[in-house]
């Protein structure tokens, strides 16, 4: 079953009240949603870890959700924060390829999904910075390969990644 906004919102409200059954369903559905959300945005073998980290953040920060507001934009903000945090930790992807699955194909709410996606976040920073981040931090290319792919010097790649990650962390809540 694919989670929708209304259903997740109701489950979260119940979970905040201590309903363990609702919480178990919520975590399961959020886990599936996050796995789709992160697909193509980090190496496939790192998705599980990132989903788990985000679910733990959801657990620790569940009181920060305001039940009068939509749920998915809140979850997406938590997910983006964890994603940027993971990139900043200097994660290096060792996988060779990334599959071509489009997360929006699984969702009934494509418009909302597009607005809260990580692609949208990457579109908000200059192309030179997002290109460097995509190559090195998401696809796991070496610095030499990144230089070749982007046409940037090594120093510029490092500067662009540093500045890009800083800007991404400032833009986590941007549409």
């Amino acid at each position, binding site marked *: 079953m694919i989670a929708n906004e209304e259903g997740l919102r109701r489950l979260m409200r119940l979970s905040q009240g*201590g309903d363990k059954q609702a919480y178990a369903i919520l975590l399961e559905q959020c886990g599936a949603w996050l796995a789709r959300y992160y697909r193509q945005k980090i190496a496939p073998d790192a998705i*599980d870890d990132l989903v788990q980290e985000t679910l733990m953040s959801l657990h620790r920060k*569940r*009181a*920060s959700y305001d039940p009068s*507001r939509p749920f998915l934009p809140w979850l997406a903000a938590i997910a983006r924060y964890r994603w940027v945090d993971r990139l900043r930790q200097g994660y290096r992807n060792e996988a060779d390829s990334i599959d071509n699955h489009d997360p929006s194909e699984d969702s009934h709410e494509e418009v909302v999904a597009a607005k809260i996606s990580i692609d949208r976040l990457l579109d908000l920073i200059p192309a030179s910075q997002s290109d460097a981040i995509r190559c090195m931090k998401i696809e796991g290319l070496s610095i030499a390969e990144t230089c070749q792919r982007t046409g940037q010097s090594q120093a510029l790649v490092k500067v662009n990644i540093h500045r890009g990650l800083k800007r991404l962390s400032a833009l986590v809540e*941007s549409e």
Partner: protein
Amino acid sequence: MKQGFSLDDLVHDLEPVRPFNMVRAIASVGAILAAAAALIILSKGMRADVMAGDPEPMFLIRAGLLLLLGGGCGWAVLSMASPAVGKQGQSWKMALAAAALFPLAALVVAMTGRIEVAMSNMRYGLDCMAFSGIGGLATAIPMVLSLRRGAPTNPERAGWLTGVAAGGLGAFAYGLHCPFNDVVYIGVWYSLAVGVCALLGRLIVPRLIRW
């Protein structure tokens, strides 16, 4: 897969929580601000014109701008406790722009040489900074507690804004006592008070709220 991670553990660990509520958060900051203002009035006394019910226009403008600054930035800080994509408010920028009026006006007037009030009352100016800072610290506490309980996604900005909001509200509270109406005095000493609070907020708050 992380070792020791289990959805069942999270479910087992679940306790009821009180969800974030903006009205309650604003009320807690407002209550602290009222208490800080009352303490300043009790300890230092209220401005004579305000006490007489005939406030000077400069007092009204100063108090209004400081409330706008503290309120606008405080609102932004409390909003950051409950994040959401698409929610990023920009009201604090307007508040900051409006509050820049005093330092800019002070600069223009100071260039004409009318700086004697601000310079000859340095002792009062330092008092203004100290009491604004203490009042600001008090109002910063509920803001930081809300951020710690919440999930701010930009701790650095939250730090800056907490400092500016606290400085603005603290200066507003002290302004109920401060008898000076000179624009250079206000531009120098009140701006310094807010600026120092902003800097302290940036240095201290992010360490307290990172998650």
